[in-house]
C-alpha cells in the first residue's frame, strides 16, 4: 500500500478548477468570441472600450444604466421610455455616450491583426480588409486564426507548421492545465485499490474512502 497517501486530517481538496483562466478553450467557446478574440473595432468609430465590455450585450446594458441614473436631469426622452424594460436607444448624443452604429460581427481578421493602436496599423487593417473583400474565401479560416492567437503564440508570426505524418502541436492551455493538475494532485497506483469498487461507489454517490 505504498501509494496510500491519506492522512488522518481532513482530506486534501483535489479538484479541477473549471473557472480558472487556465481552462482550455474549445472551439465552441471561440465561436462566442472570448474577450481576447474580440473583433477589431470599426475603423471610423470606436467609442466603446474593448477592455471594459465583457460581452457583446454590454452595449445594451450600458444603455439601461444610463436610463436609470437618478442623478441625471430629466430629459424629454424619459417620456418616451417611461417603463423599466429596455427600449431601443434614440440617436441623441446626450443620452447615449456610446455610438451604436457599429455592428459587431465575428471578424475574420481577429486572429491575424493586432489591436489597432496607431494610424499605421489601422492602415494595414484597412488593407487586409480590402484583401478579404476581394478574396472572401480567406475569411473562412478565422477559427484557425483565432486558435493560433490563443493557443499557439509560440509560433512566430511568419512561421508555419506543416505536418504530413500526423504530429499535432499541443495547445498552450493543455500544458498549463496539466501542469497545474500535476502540481496539485496526489496520484497513486490504480492497482492499489479495486478500481471497480471506486467506480461503483462513484456511480451510487456513496463514499468508501475513509
Amino acid at each position, binding site marked *: 500500500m505504498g501509494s496510500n497517501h491519506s492522512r488522518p486530517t481532513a*482530506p486534501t481538496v*483535489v479538484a479541477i478548477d473549471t473557472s480558472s483562466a487556465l481552462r482550455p478553450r474549445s472551439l465552441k467557446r471561440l465561436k462566442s468570441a472570448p474577450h481576447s478574440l474580440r473583433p477589431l473595432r470599426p475603423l471610423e468609430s470606436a467609442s466603446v472600450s474593448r477592455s471594459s465590455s465583457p460581452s457583446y450585450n454590454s452595449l445594451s446594458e450600458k444603455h439601461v444604466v444610463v436610463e436609470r441614473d437618478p442623478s441625471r436631469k430629466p430629459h424629454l426622452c424619459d417620456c418616451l421610455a417611461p417603463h423599466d424594460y429596455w427600449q431601443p436607444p434614440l440617436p441623441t448624443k446626450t443620452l447615449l455616450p456610446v455610438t451604436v452604429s457599429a455592428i459587431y460581427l465575428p471578424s475574420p481578421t481577429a486572429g491575424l491583426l493586432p489591436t489597432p493602436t496607431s494610424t499605421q496599423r489601422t492602415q494595414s487593417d484597412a488593407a487586409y480588409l480590402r484583401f478579404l473583400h476581394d478574396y472572401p474565401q480567406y475569411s473562412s479560416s478565422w477559427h484557425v486564426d483565432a486558435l493560433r492567437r490563443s493557443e499557439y503564440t509560440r509560433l512566430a508570426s511568419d512561421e508555419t507548421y506543416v505536418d504530413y505524418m*500526423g504530429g499535432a502541436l499541443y495547445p498552450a492551455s493543455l500544458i498549463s492545465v496539466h501542469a497545474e493538475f500535476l502540481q496539485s494532485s496526489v496520484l*497513486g497506483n490504480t492497482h492499489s*485499490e479495486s478500481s471497480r469498487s471506486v467506480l461503483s461507489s462513484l456511480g451510487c454517490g456513496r463514499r468508501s474512502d475513509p
Partner: protein
Amino acid sequence: MADDLILNHSIRSSKLSAALTATARAAVLSFFNAPPGSTVVFTANASAALKLVGEAFPFTPRAAFILPEDAHNSVHGIREFAKAKGAPLVYLSSPPRGGVRVREAFVSDIPFTAHIAHLDAHIPASQTLIDKHAPPAGTPALFAYTGQSNITNSKPPLPVLAHASDRGFTTLLDAAALAPTTPIDLTHTPVDAVAISFYKMFGFPTGIGALVLAPGIGAWLREKRPWFAGGTVEVVQVPGTVVGRAAAIDEAFEVSV
C-alpha cells in the same frame, strides 16, 4: 476532459487515479461515439495497440490475413504473426497515388516486387478480394485497414470494413493518422478494433495511445493473449499452467507496474 470531471473531494491517491482513468476512458469512447459495451485499452502508442491484436489473434492456415499495401509499417508488421501461424497473406493493391483498390487484389505469399505484375488484374465486384477470401464459418480471420496512409495521405473508404465484417472477418482499423483529421463514428462505422495515438491528435501527452475494442471482441481476444504480466492476470498457478485473466478487459490488456 476537465469539464467532465466530477470529483468527490475525498477521493485521493489511487482512487483519484482510478477515477481519472475511468473518466479518460469514457471520454475516448464518447469522442469516437463507440457503441455501448466497447472497451478502451490504453497502450504506449498506436503501434503497440496494433501489436496487441496481432500477437493475440488466432491466425490459422485456413483463413487469409487481408491488409492494404498502402498501410503503415505497424500494420504490415502484423504479417509476421500471421506467417508464424501459417495464415496466407492477401494484399489490397494500391492505385498509383495511394489508397486501396477495393475490387482488386491477389493472394500473396511471395515477395513484394512480384506484386507489381498483378496490379492490373481485375476482379469483378461480385468477386472482390474480401468475398474471394472470406473465411469458412467459425474460422477467425483478420482484416486490417489503414484509415489514412502516412505515406500517400490517401483515405480509403471506411465502408469496406463493414463489408469485411459481413464476410466474417475481424476488422482492425489503424486510425493513427486518420483520427487527427477526420471524425470517426464507431456506431455509424463499426470496427472490431481501432488503434489510435493521442499525441497525433492533440500533441500532448506523448507516449500514450489506445486500442478501442468493440463489444465482445475484448473478452474473446483476452483468452488468446500469448503472454501475461503485472495486472493483466488475477490468478497464476505456480508451478503450473493455470492463468486467470483479469476480469476487466482493459486491465487484461494493460501492462502496468
